């Protein structure tokens, strides 16, 4: 990858009064990649995006785009384009003039309207070029906003919750289109969202934020499969978080839950006896049986909810562990031996499915869970 569209955040901090909305963030976003920033509201993701766009200035730190320090470069001259959450189409201009607006600002003559029409055709709105924004549906307005952002050939496209105002059906369709567009253009996309499946489906890199800090930044599979902290595990979902205390350290870590359960797994981090730990087990790695409790990596519980999900069945348990505990069972397994509300079961998993949560952020992460 060339340096074009590469973004380097160097100890970027933004304070509002005494509160640091973004706190000394270091990160490199590869040029031409699709990056999703995710976190609950107020985590700093939008502020970070606005600083990259130049609508906010960092209190301290540097921002480099394509190898050039743009920390204090004016918005609109740093090779970025921002697509606003509410699209921010100019109500007094036709679609053509909306899309041609950035060209007009850059001093282009009559040709700008031709280029705007071409761009509108590219987002399948060529036939509506003379309409006013208020005459469009939400999905169409979004395409216009996209066309207006792309008309200046930016190195980096910034998208502020681009899909949140659309209904479920359109959201999924636009998601596909965004990904295809990014593939075609090969430019860097930075997409702020609070929807986990969206981030996982789209991104080459997911940046999970909380309280102005980057909690984990990695490929979506890494984020989903090996969350760094209890917060990431809970916020990204698909995981059960279990608390325990280390008993012995050796070829195998032995730990004991406050409820008396025994847990054993291969050592993946430096641990010492007596240490309080949390680990995660993916919901789809859990098996449920109705035999007697006992053995390592087993947690007794009572079924409190069963939801059929098509390809799997979601079974919710209440266990002696304080947190919710969920198993995703393969459809055929479940219906071979169905479970019902109130059944006593034992949840079991394999030692290799245990993911130690080394990060200390233990917040619930459900500020915006849906």
């Amino acid at each position: 990858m060339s340096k074009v569209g590469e973004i380097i955040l160097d100890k970027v901090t933004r304070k509002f009064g005494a509160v640091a909305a973004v706190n000394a963030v270091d990160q490199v976003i590869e040029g031409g990649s699709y990056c999703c920033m995710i976190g609950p509201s107020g985590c700093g993701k939008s502020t970070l995006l606005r600083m990259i766009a130049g609508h906010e200035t960092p209190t301290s730190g540097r921002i480099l785009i394509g190898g050039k320090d743009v920390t204090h470069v004016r918005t609109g001259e740093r090779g970025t384009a921002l697509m606003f959450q509410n699209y921010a189409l100019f109500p007094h201009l036709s679609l053509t003039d909306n899309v041609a607006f950035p060209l007009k600002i850059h001093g282009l003559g009559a040709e700008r309207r031709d280029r705007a029409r071409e761009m509108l055709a590219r987002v399948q709105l060529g036939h509506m070029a003379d309409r006013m924004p208020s005459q469009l549906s939400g999905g169409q307005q979004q395409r216009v906003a996209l066309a207006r952002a792309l008309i200046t050939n930016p190195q980096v496209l910034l998208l502020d919750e681009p899909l949140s105002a659309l209904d479920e059906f359109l959201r999924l369709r636009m998601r596909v289109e965004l990904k295809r567009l990014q593939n075609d253009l090969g430019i860097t996309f930075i997409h702020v969202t609070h929807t986990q499946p969206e981030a996982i489906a789209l991104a080459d890199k997911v940046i999970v934020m909380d309280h102005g800090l980057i909690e984990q930044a990695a490929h979506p599979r890494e984020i989903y499969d090996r969350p760094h902290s209890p917060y990431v595990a809970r916020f990204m979902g698909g995981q059960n978080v279990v608390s325990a205390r280390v008993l012995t350290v050796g070829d195998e870590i032995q730990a004991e839950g406050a409820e008396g359960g025994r847990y054993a797994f291969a050592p993946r981090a430096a641990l010492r006896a007596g240490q309080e730990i949390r680990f995660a087990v993916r919901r789809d790695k859990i098996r449920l049986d109705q035999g007697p409790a006992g053995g390592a990596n087993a947690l007794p519980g009572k079924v409190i909810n069963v939801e059929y999900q098509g390809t799997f069945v979601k079974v919710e348990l209440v266990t002696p562990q304080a947190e919710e505990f969920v198993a995703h069972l393969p459809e055929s397994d479940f219906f071979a031996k169905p479970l019902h509300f109130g059944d006593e079961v034992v949840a079991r998993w394999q030692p290799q499915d245990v993911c130690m949560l080394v990060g200390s952020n233990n917040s619930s992460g459900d500020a915006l869970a849906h």
Partner: protein
Amino acid sequence: MQSKLTFWLLTAVFVLFILFLYGPMIAIFILSFQGPTGGMTFPLRGMSLHWFADLFESSRYGDLGGAFMRSIILGLLAMVITVTVSFFAGLGFRRKFRGSGVLFYLAIISLVMPGVLTGLGIGTLFTTLGLRTNWLISGLGAHLTWTLPFGLLIMFAVLNRFNGSWEEAARDAGAKRTQVLTQVTLPILFPGLIAVALFGLTLSYDEFPRSLLTIGTKNTLPLQVASLTSNVTTPALYAIGTLTTALSLLVIAAAFAAIALTGRKR
């Protein structure tokens, strides 16, 4: 049964209200076309434009033309100042700066003050300072105490529906401050500014209590008409009313045309 009765009762009230609102005005229109021998009340003794002609020919109405010109000039000046100041003040008030609340109430308070008192205050101030009251100076100032707060309030209502991210989108496209102002903020707010202008013009054009003690030796139209009511007893008074109303309707039509031409189909 009940709802039918309510319907007719409310209809009657509404019709009475409409009659009360427009009846006197219509009566004045009709009576201004009174024949040369007619008086200030019905019945009509023929129809003529006699009293309109009389306005322009006779000298007993004083400097009516001058008063009208002064009212128009004053109205236009008040309008331009009100639009300009309200526009920028409205934009400024979007940011919650220190003391913005106090400043807002200070600007609004002159709406609550009785107009005669405001006028008296300005007149007394001028006398104390040894200055002579004059329609273009103290008069304009007095009118602005009335039109500015109104303009500001309308501007607030207009800005309520203004989305700040339009300006951000313009900046994101590379626009400089003046380009944002002239290509995005101003055109989007234009219909609202027409409303502010209309209010500025009409409030000033028919201002009476604040003008009374601040206008100096030369009258504006409302003051001139008021003084005529005490010594003129012909339908010429009504002719003045008809003429100024026609002018007002023309101004409103022009404003609507301006909005229609620039606003297009939002």
